């Protein structure tokens, strides 16, 4: 199935290209990402939970940049899946200046197999559109995570598998690979929009992340 769309980012073409072509930024921008492990400048593995027909489904995929033509064209292929399901995607991105921003035209060829094929049959175009849009907006915002889950391991290093039924382990740096940097304090573990909502209720991300806060009752 082929799904296409466009998104205008409030970034200069150079800045947009810099972010989009960076696999670490791309990986961190995946929806509800639990872990990203960058193997090379063109390849990363991610565990994330995209919304599917019924709730969301944990998916593990390996993404490879298969074509990179700076500053305007990028092709990324992803292969992986979930239990009894397989997902193959190829995403072509074309960047062009649009006023003060950058228009990103995208086309995704998605093949979903297994039980997920059944679950997503009526909603796949919408799911692809939502997820590509979310990724691009997260890239635009530069926060590295459209839906990164609290505690998500977003970093570089060797492949760090996220095992089913277990919390994502810390990334293990591969020999020669740059040490993963801890997330910046102001990035926080939460989705920015979510953090903003919570902040409106008189809390902040750090407080939410502190389990002791929940024991203090109403008014926190």
């Amino acid at each position: 199935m082929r799904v296409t769309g466009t998104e205008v980012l409030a970034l200069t073409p150079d800045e947009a290209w810099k972010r989009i072509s960076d696999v670490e930024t791309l990986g961190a921008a995946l929806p509800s990402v639990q872990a990203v492990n960058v193997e090379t400048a063109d390849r990363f593995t991610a565990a994330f939970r995209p919304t599917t027909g019924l709730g969301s489904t944990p998916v593990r995929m390996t993404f490879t940049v298969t074509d990179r033509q700076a500053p305007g064209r990028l092709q990324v292929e992803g292969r992986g899946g979930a239990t009894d399901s397989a997902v193959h995607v190829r995403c072509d991105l074309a960047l062009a200046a649009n006023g003060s921003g950058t228009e990103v035209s995208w086309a995704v060829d998605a093949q979903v197999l297994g039980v997920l094929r059944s679950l997503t049959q009526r909603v796949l175009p919408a799911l692809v559109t939502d997820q590509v849009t979310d990724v691009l907006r997260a890239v635009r915002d530069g926060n590295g995570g459209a839906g990164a889950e609290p505690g998500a391991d977003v970093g570089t290093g060797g492949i760090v598998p996220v095992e089913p039924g277990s919390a994502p382990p810390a990334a293990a740096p591969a020999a020669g690979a740059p040490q993963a940097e801890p997330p910046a304090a102001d990035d926080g573990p939460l989705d920015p929009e979510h953090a903003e909502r919570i902040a409106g209720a008189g809390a902040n991300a750090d407080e939410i992340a502190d389990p002791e806060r929940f024991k203090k009752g109403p008014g926190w």
Partner: protein
Amino acid sequence: MSAAEAAVQAPAQTWSGQSVQRVEDGRLLQGEGQFVDDVSMHRQGYVHFVRSPYAHARIVSVDVSRAEAMEGVYATLTGDECVEQCDPFFQIAPEPGGKLQEYPLAVGKVRYQGDAVAAVLAETRELARDAAERIEVEYEPLPAVVDAVAAADPRSAVLHDEVGTNQAWHGEFDFGDIDWAIEQADHVVRIDKLHFHRFSSTPLECFGAVVNWDRGTDSIEIRSNNQMPMFGSMMLSPTLRVGVNQLTWHSQDIGGAFGIKIVSYPQIGVLALLSRKARRPAKWTETRSEHMIASGHGNERTFLDIEVPVMADGTILGFRCRAYDDAGAYLHYEPLGAVIWSQVLTSVYRFKHVHVDYTQSFTNKCPTCPNRGYSRLQHMWMLERVVDTVAQQLGFDRVELRKQNFVQPDEYPYETPNGCVYDSGDLPLGLDKALAAIDVEGWKRKQAERRAEGSTKRIGIGMGSTLDSGTNNFGQARIVNPELPFSGNGEAAVAKLDLYGEVSLMLGTTPQGQSHETTAGQVVADVLGMDPSGIRVYAGFNKEHGAYVGFSGTYASQFAVTGIGAAIGAAEKLRDEIIRIAAFALQADEDEIELRDGMASVRSDAERAIPLIGIANLVYSNIAVLPPELADSVSLNCRHVYRPPFEVPDHETKTGQLTLTYASQIHAAVVEIDEETGQIEVLDYAAVDDCGTRINPQVVEGQVHGAVGHGLGAALHEALHYDEDGQLLQSTFWDYHPIQALDVPRLKTDHVESPSPFSTTGAKGMGEGGGAPLATICSAIQDALGPDALVTDTHNPAERVFRLLQGEADGTVEVTSR
């Protein structure tokens, strides 16, 4: 009258024939039934299967190392290990299909989405599932074949290299002289294509089993909901390289099966191998998605080039067609379906000339298997469409055309062109009753009024019929494979008088809601002259009771004949022994003894009586008082095998008595179709069943309701579609929409009672009338749409009806007249 028969005075009213309350209901309604997931064994682990997301792919590698490294994982199993430890399942098919090599897990290739490539046994269900995700399988995708007709094309990708073709079985069924009939006919009606869609039964309880391969005794204990355990033994024993006497099977309550649970033997084989490897019991409870993608589906069948010769007076001489049956990826119980449809070769009609060119193909879909009305409902639906189409095209009244071509009441026993013998019936009466039940004349008036008003809500009146051929002659297997040493059928039961005079009955059947405990208790009570409440019918199946034969189980509408026949036979043997002992004890002749209310007494002297506990005492605990010749010839533990009077069919001519009894179902329905949306509403529905003498009318009624619901679901909601990649599009109930109570109209039921001359009680097997609603709803839709559209598919949801309303056609009909 024998002494034994005379001993039991026929009560004024027998228990058989009464709507005795179901004895099963107490435990089931109070949540005290024991289903397979209720069974646990000490130290058991839980199994999760790794299933292919691809419909057709080469297995490049399977790496279980990361799963095995997890704490709590007891064992894994792959296809390669199966090859080392097993032999392929034996195949019913002759070559080429018979060359198929199937193991409990896929080897070398996966052939449908859901094909199991590996399995994990772990401490918990959740851990097993998580470990299964760690098993890495590399696939090399191959082209998928998803259409049975296309699969038969030699240019299609071949599923099984060892078979070399996708043709699982092919045969021609030629009776009478169809060429002559077509030459003689005043009209020939030609329909280019009819399609019977793929659906299933979706029992409330999915597959499941707990298996323990005890290394100490080298025996395999199987607690499962398999519905034909001795067939399972036939398949598993050679595959696992063990004797049948090393396999024990036990089931209690089964939450529906409908034929599908015959084919759980590959999964049970995997559990056995995992149990042996891990030295602990292995338990597996299928998930609903697994059930949808990988348990078993009903047969999809495409009929091409149908030709129907018709005389000017409406006599239909017969038919010719090509049939392509979709077996799916493996042959599970197939290709028996390739002959079973011919039990009802001409359905309820008197056609004399038939030619069917039948091909069964492998496709990259879930294997098919028996499913309520197995293989016959497809064929009979096609014939009902033929009759409706003939009526519409040639201007005959549908009711009168049916009645004219029905087998007539005075023609029974009626022999079909292929040698099957219809035992009894009154089809015209059944049709009259069905039409009267829906007040057909009233609906015709409303239909005319709507048409006159130009209403966009069209009314359609439909009717349809099926025959429920019960009690297979397994000799028909020789028609598909002359080398198979199968023939006849049978069932066993054991009746026992226990130490304190308790009466027990053990059956070889595997009830799944059919009320065997109740109905067997009724007939045994009549034999022994006692109340059914005094008889304990053991729940479920237990191989260790010894009450089984090769084809024991519950399937193919046969319990009322075989199971009841066995129960009565065993009870009669027990009665005979009781009478002999009582005659000795009471110093009377055997023909003076009568059994009544749990006592054996001398008919002419009520003072001379002995209770059953006394009879039991003499045999079990006081045997020295019996004369040796009597003591040596009684056991109070009486096994009987009921054997239907079958002969071996002629495999060359494909003729013979393929089944023993023929219950009939005649249904009528009224539907309303919204022209603007295609939405269908069933306004009225009636079902008339003739299953001969009814042992328990309320139980029969329940079966009729279930069958109607099943068929309505298939006609309007339930379908299993695969896309061009071989991906199942209904892997959950979210997409499948199984029939629910709210989808079923208030049913009107009636019955005709034509006792079978071939069965012990006059009863006929019943319960598989699920096909009648498919024909009936199609007939009603066709009536609403009129001659501008042709209903060519069994599955007619709103969108298909809408397309038909827009003039889109899936098939064509032509008429040639002299």
